[in-house]
């Protein structure tokens, strides 16, 4: 077994196990940390695939941004450290079953399909290309979506400010 | 003559009613509008006769305006004798309805507006030659009824209004599906009644669409077992509402059954005729027997309407020329008669504050005019010669008997039997209200006022005009039914 293969399996294990922990841990902070590891694991897989740029973004945005946000919000809502109320067993079992069936179904579909796997697996995107394409306006240019996302971020920002910074005192 | 005038006048009246400043103005505007419309209808009759005399046949005064060209919808109007008869009926009933509502105090403007709107729908329906606008006008007439009953009605009005609106909408839903079936079956996408009637619709289409259309329209005209909106609706409605309901609205269904279902789909008409006849015979007898047990005057008339409208459907189901003519005559006759009946009931109720026959008695003493009208209308209902009911029923019977075959014969005889049952309940009702000893509290009740007299006179004129001299109506209708029957027999 090659080294990269081992690395891959380790990453996969990390991702899946922390993912499972993230949705099952009873301590919310622990769940958040597990999520962090799962995201890092995914970033690792990106690296493993030679998609460094996206891996970097993943780490910056997710690990550095979203998870931090989540942890902050955990503190803000004062629920850190408490044990979370557990779900009814019936629903848990049902959900697990549903998820598993869905998982199986998806896998069946994926494996039934014959993906035309490319011969040329060495092609990796270069950061410079990504940059030009991101701001390009012609064919294969992603300037418009980029602008769109910026509008969205603006809107989200304003929305967050208004909602979270509620000035009026609590009435109910 | 421009048929759009028939739509324009009610529309104008409605607008003027909305703009009126006080109750008095509302009433007079409506009265004027209805009168003008009646004159217009009579003028239409005159021009129609003139045109017929000069050899014109089929649909006269046709006008076509493109409306939704994508769908092939045209605003296509025209009249033949059948439609004209219905228009005349509507004009009479509307005028009378406006007159008997003279002392509606509550939301007068809205009341008259809805009345006029309802009549607008009816006129539009009768002159439509395009199935889409026919359907359009059919549905226009539903909501005014709902509101009239719900707002100005009495008794369990909300229940009745709901039931009526829902059942009628259900009926029109079936009509819609039937119409669409017809629409898509032809090579050409058209709603035009005349064009469609010239196509030979495929047997399958006919087989599916005919019952849809017939039952759909049948709901409007109290086809058994879809009649249950009739008693509740009529009894809860205000006087003019009941008049319009029974006098005009139920005729929309009969007219639709004849003009749309039967005319367009002759093969299916033959195929389904036995079912129609069974249902209508049941309606006739069953309605009559059910009437016998009613104690409320309005219920009596409502159930008897079921019975009488059964004759319309029976006539249509018999598929002979005379029977079809009879069906149309019965529509006109029943429209006038039942409107008058409801008007009289309204007048009685207004004075005695009861509609229970057992609580009245001897009213002839204090209100001779009203009871005389009650008598006449009752006699018309039980088919006395000289009044319109007789003419219409006899024409139906005569036409029904033209259809040989034991089944049809037995159905006809069954239908004939209703004349006895009708006599029983009508005489019972009249005997208990108008005759017998009078109660103390009813002794000094006033007789009809001018508007009521005029209203009764208008309708009575119609009833007598048909009853005493039926030939003009017969001559008016027959060319129309001839066309239908030619189509049915494949000539």
């Amino acid at each position, binding site marked *: 077994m090659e080294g990269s293969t081992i690395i891959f399996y380790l990453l996969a294990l990390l991702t899946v196990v922390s993912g499972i922990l993230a949705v099952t841990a009873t301590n919310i902070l622990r769940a958040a940390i597990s999520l962090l590891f799962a995201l890092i694991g995914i970033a690792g897989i990106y690296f493993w695939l030679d998609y460094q740029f996206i891996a970097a973004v993943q780490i910056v945005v997710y690990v550095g941004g979203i998870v931090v946000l989540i942890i902050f919000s955990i503190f803000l809502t004062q629920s850190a450290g408490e044990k979370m109320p557990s779900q009814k067993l019936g629903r848990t079992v049902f959900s697990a079953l549903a998820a598993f069936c869905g998982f199986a179904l*998806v896998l069946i*579909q*994926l494996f*039934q*399909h014959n*993906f035309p796997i490319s011969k040329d697996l060495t092609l990796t995107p270069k950061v410079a290309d990504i940059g030009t394409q991101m701001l390009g306006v*012609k*064919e*294969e*240019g*992603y*300037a418009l*979506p980029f602008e*769109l*996302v910026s*509008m*969205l971020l*603006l*809107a989200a920002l*304003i*929305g967050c*400010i*208004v*909602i979270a910074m*509620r000035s*009026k005192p*609590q*009435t*109910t | 003559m421009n048929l759009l005038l028939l739509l324009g006048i009610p529309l104008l009246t409605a607008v003027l009613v909305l703009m009126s400043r006080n109750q008095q103005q509302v009433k007079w505007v409506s009265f004027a509008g209805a009168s003008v419309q009646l004159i217009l209808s009579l003028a239409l009759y005159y021009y129609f006769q003139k045109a017929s005399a000069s050899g014109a046949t089929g649909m006269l005064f046709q006008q076509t305006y493109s409306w*939704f*060209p*994508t*769908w092939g*919808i045209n605003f296509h109007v025209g009249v033949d004798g059948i439609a004209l008869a219905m228009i005349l009926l509507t004009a009479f009933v509307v005028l009378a309805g406006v007159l008997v509502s003279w002392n509606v105090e509550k939301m007068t403007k809205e009341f008259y507006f809805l009345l006029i709107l309802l009549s607008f729908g009816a006129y539009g329906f009768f002159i439509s030659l395009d199935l*889409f606008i026919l*359907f*359009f*006008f059919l*549905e*226009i007439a*539903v*909501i005014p009824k*709902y*509101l009239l009953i*719900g*707002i100005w009605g009495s008794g369990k*009005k*909300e229940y009745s*209004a*709901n039931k009526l609106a*829902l059942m009628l*909408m*259900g009926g029109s*839903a079936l009509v*819609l*599906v039937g119409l*669409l*079936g017809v*629409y*898509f079956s032809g090579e050409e996408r058209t709603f035009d009644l005349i064009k469609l009637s010239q196509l030979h619709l495929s047997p399958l289409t006919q087989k599916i669409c005919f019952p849809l259309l017939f039952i759909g329209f049948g709901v409007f005209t109290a086809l058994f077992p879809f009649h249950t909106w009739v008693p509740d609706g009529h009894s809860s409605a205000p006087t003019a509402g009941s008049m319009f309901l029974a006098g005009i609205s139920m005729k929309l269904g009969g007219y639709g059954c004849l003009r749309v279902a039967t005319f367009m789909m002759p093969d299916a008409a033959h195929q389904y005729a036995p079912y129609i006849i069974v249902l209508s015979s049941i309606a006739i007898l069953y309605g009559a027997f059910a009437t016998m047990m009613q104690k409320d005057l309005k219920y009596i008339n409502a159930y008897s309407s079921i019975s009488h409208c059964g004759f319309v459907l029976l006539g249509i189901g018999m598929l002979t020329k005379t029977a079809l003519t009879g069906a149309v005559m019965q529509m006109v006759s029943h429209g006038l008669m039942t409107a008058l009946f409801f008007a009289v009931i309204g007048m009685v109720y207004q004075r005695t504050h009861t509609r229970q026959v057992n609580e009245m008695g001897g009213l002839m003493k204090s209100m001779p005019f009203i009871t005389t009208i009650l008598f006449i209308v009752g006699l018309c209902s039980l088919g006395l010669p000289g009044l319109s009911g007789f003419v219409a029923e006899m024409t139906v019977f005569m036409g029904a008997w033209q259809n040989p075959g034991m089944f049809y014969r037995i159905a006809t005889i069954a239908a004939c039997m209703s004349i006895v049952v009708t006599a029983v309940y009508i005489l019972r009702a009249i005997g208990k209200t108008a005759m017998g000893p009078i109660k103390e509290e009813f002794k000094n009740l006033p007789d009809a006022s001018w508007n009521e007299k005029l209203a009764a006179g208008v309708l009575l004129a119609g009833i007598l005009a048909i009853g005493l001299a039926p030939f003009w109506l017969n001559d008016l209708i027959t060319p129309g039914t001839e066309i239908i029957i030619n189509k049915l027999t494949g000539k």
Partner: protein
Amino acid sequence: MTTDLLILMKQELVVTFIIFILLFIKIGKGIKNETLLPLIQLLLLTNFVIGFFFNKEGILFGGMYNTTALMVFQKNILSLATYLISLLCVGWLKKSDHLAEFFLLMLSALLGMFFMISAGNLLMFYLSLELATIPIAAIANFDLEKRRSSEAAMKMILSSAFSSGILLFGISLLYGATGTIDFVALPALLNGSPLQLFAFIFLFAAFAFKLSIVPFHLYTADVYEGAPIAVTSFLSVVSKGAIAFIFITALYKVFRPMEEVWYNMLVILSVATMLVGNLFALRQQQFKRFLAFSSIAQVGFILVGISSGAPEGLSAVVYFVLIYVFSNLAAFGVAELISNQTGKETIDDYKGMYATNPFLSWVLAIALFSLAGIPPTAGFFGKLFLITAGASKASYWFIIIAALNMMISLFYYLKVVRAVFMDKSEQPIEKINIPASAKLALLLCGAGIVLLGILSWVYDYIVSLVK
């Protein structure tokens, strides 16, 4: 390129422009609501008017953005609806502490919808869909001190995030199976393989979620009920309209090779949608919630029209949405006025309203009749054309069910009419003071409801756009 850009994207640019104006206003000293609101209304009117000029068809950004006359018209319908909302909800808006932000977010969503309509590939579609959703989730919470408002926002954002996940999963599979996200290239690559179908169903479900199709509709009522009425009306009219447009475009243009599948899906789902929407609407007391379910049922009818798969279906849907804008906004407008001034929101509260508020009652009645599809209101034509379009495939049972559902829906619309006109109440709603702009909007809606059907050239115009 630049002039092309200016002309082809004029509507998007105008909206962006307004957004930035609002942003500067917000950042700057801030203007009183009384002055700001007319300004916004004016800007929105401009936005609407501009839609009628300089129309040109074309493609930008290498196919990511395209526009046609029909798309311009669709966007205009949305602009109009937004303008009407800004007129109708003045009462609530004036009281708002965050007027500028509110419009900023709402217009962002509108911008998202514009882009969604013009989207040329799945990425653009996804992004604009999110742009059209996330800000709305935020403004759903703008009744900041109301519990229900935040609950609604929460349900909206979580549900739509979940649906985004499903959508994205579908898109990723589709991408894997075809290698493209471009709308133009996709149809040729669709061969109906199971995986493609699988992916398509995921996509379809996401559409269904946004359009509130049963069983993906469950968030709708709660969100409608909890959100401020301005947001609810925006959601139910603008958002639904936009999704309907893109949905029908996607099905007709992109997924045409799968027509057999989606036709059957539409039949099943539209029956379910009409039935469930109607059955739930029957039992509602809260007016907004009632309208939510009724709008679900309306969506069922839209599906009937879409199922035709023919240009008639497209034109009928556009026409219906146009009518729906007027009808629904009129109903919401009345509800807003009442709720804002009296705090009453249930149908029982409307009892005996006619005595005190005849104008509002009539507007409400006409709007409800239009929604129920009663002539001569335009709703009749809208619904009839939808059904006619759907009937072209001649499935009698389907059409009968649709037609009978019209009857059920009539029942509950009449329930409201009955409360307003017939029932008596000890404490009817007092006389509502109708602001001028709201009155204008209600009149516009009323006129639209009455005239859109009778004036057939509107429909002809849509048909000419569809071609």
